[in-house]
């Protein structure tokens, strides 16, 4: 088997914030490589810097120093426009609070990334349907998020993250607002998605037990530093 290039490579990445006089190192000199096709869980207590690290990989934030290389592209060297394109085409994102737009139906929510990517209207309906089928919500296509359970909302968010066929799926505490049974179902879905060839998943969580069951590898953070990094099972 030929070795694929890593999906994500972090090289001495730091992100600092200035709060008045003091400087806070949210991420401090983290180096990490995520091979293509891996399901990595980023663990850590709150304030450990795991979400900041995820935002850096997502291209929502830029590192103060170091390099974030995803799919062979150095994000820190990208123009804002190229970074927006990267967020649109290369990564999909899922949040703890789902972040669906409440006034839009499921169809419209899932269609949003396709609009941003200027995908033809004729193609959109098919792709939205496919994505919703994949998360088992094709029958709720005309509903609004408020008419759905938490688990269903998170599945919709996953469909939205996948609709542009990204190579990397980033999930920030995807089970944080869900009961344990629903959380497990969501993680099983992510595991299912991981089976797609070339799909890499990075998930931030503080539920170690779930992470151990579903992820391939665990990376534990504390005070902005990478504390441990090893296989889950």
């Amino acid at each position, binding site marked *: 088997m030929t070795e694929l290039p890593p999906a994500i490579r972090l090289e001495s990445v730091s992100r600092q914030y200035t709060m008045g006089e003091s400087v806070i190192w949210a991420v401090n000199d983290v180096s990490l490589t995520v091979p293509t096709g891996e399901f990595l869980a980023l663990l850590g207590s709150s304030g450990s810097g795991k979400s900041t690290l995820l935002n850096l990989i997502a291209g929502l934030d830029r590192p103060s120093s170091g390099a974030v290389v995803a799919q062979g592209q150095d994000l820190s060297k990208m123009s804002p426009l190229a970074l927006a394109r*990267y967020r*649109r*085409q290369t990564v999909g994102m899922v949040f703890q609070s789902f972040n669906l737009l409440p006034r839009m139906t499921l169809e419209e929510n899932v269609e949003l*990334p396709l609009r941003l990517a200027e995908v033809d209207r004729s193609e959109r309906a098919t792709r939205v349907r496919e994505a919703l089928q994949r998360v088992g919500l094709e029958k709720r296509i005309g509903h609004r998020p408020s008419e759905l359970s938490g688990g269903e909302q998170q599945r919709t968010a996953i469909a939205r993250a996948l609709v542009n066929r990204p190579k990397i799926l980033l999930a920030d505490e995807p089970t944080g607002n869900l009961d344990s049974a629903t959380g497990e179902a969501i993680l099983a879905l992510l595991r299912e998605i991981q089976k797609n060839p070339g799909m890499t998943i990075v998930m931030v969580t503080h539920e170690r037990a779930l992470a151990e069951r579903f992820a391939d590898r665990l990376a534990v953070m504390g005070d902005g530093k990478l504390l441990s990094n090893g296989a889950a099972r």
Partner: protein
Amino acid sequence: MKLRDLSDLAFRNLREAVLRNSLTTLGVAVGVASLVAMLSLGVGLQQLASSRLAKSGLFDSIFVTPKTNLRGPGGGPPATRAPASKARLLDADARAEISRMPNVIEVYPQIRFFTEVRYDGKPYATMVAGMPESSKSSGAFDGMQGHFFSSPDADETILQAEFAKELSPQTSSLLGKDLILRYAERQSLAAQAGDAAANSGGFSVVPKEKHFLIIGVVETEPASGFGGFGSGRLLIPLPIAETLRAAQVNDLRDILRGSSSDKPTYSSLTVRVKSPSLVEATEAKLKDLGFSVFSLLDASKSLRIFFSVFDLLLGIFGSLALAVATLGIINTLVMAILERRREIGVLKALGAADRDVKQLFFVEAGVMGLFGGVFGTLLGWLIGRSLTLGTNIYLHRQNLPGVDISSVPWWLVLGGIGFAVAVSLAAGLYPASRAARLDPVQALRYE
């Protein structure tokens, strides 16, 4: 994002805060309405004034007189006097030549003479004036008692109101009555006694009478030009006045100048051209023909300048409300940013570029401007109409004819809408760039 998707999302966002956005749009509409109403008033008054003036014949008329000095040989400063060779007699030939010139609609002489009329057996002395057919549309005959001459060669007369009161205090009772005009007809001696008399250039004066039917009473004689000798109090059709060949004031002067011939000569002719813009060129041509000319063109130029300044001032006052509406748009959109912070964060996380967010807010501002512009223009038009209506009710009570004081031409409709959109887009600049600059990490953390 494609424009269709942008406007789709923009409309959706506007519908979400429908009350706030409607109020903002209404603000724009009121601003545009005040601007459109003000300008429609300016345009309407200008149109009213210029149509009245155009109808009066003052600005499309040239008054032609012979260059031979009226004060007789030797009178007037030599510099202003035309060389004798170039001076021409203003006679029937000249009249025909002028009427053949391009852009000339009408050439007519001033015929007015002092004479006696008999009504109800009593004599009255008065000034008779010939009215060209075109004076019908001058506006002076609007709202008259009775009607204008039924044809240019009808034996009919219109009386000036004060003179009519002399004839009968109840002026309306005069209509349909008969009136006898007694005048002195000028008969050229040449026509009667052959060549010898013709060389003498003399004429005899024969008393004549003619019956006229009174068909109308008018407040004042229409502005009938210059060079008249007092205003006419008894108006008859000009062709009829010409056939009377009544002795006029300048006849004797013609004799003294030795220029008498069988053909009539005129002390002045009024030349009407198609539009005031043609006056200058026609004037120059008439000068080349060897006549003195005079027109009120300069007065019409200053009128245009006056109305430009007037419109500008009205526009500035009208724009004040729109300036306030601009602040409303900025306020609404800045509020929308606060409210939709998280949504902007989500859009950015899903791959929206700063440009997409900026355009979205821009389109929202533009849509509010467009709707405000359309409603405002409609509202402005309605305000103009009601002002016209109110004015006309007032004028009607004063027994005056109605006027149209407001006018909304196409350029004002398009300009009103275009201005509203432009101003709204300008107002959207700051909120749009602020929304675009929003840090997605901060925005997503915002609850």
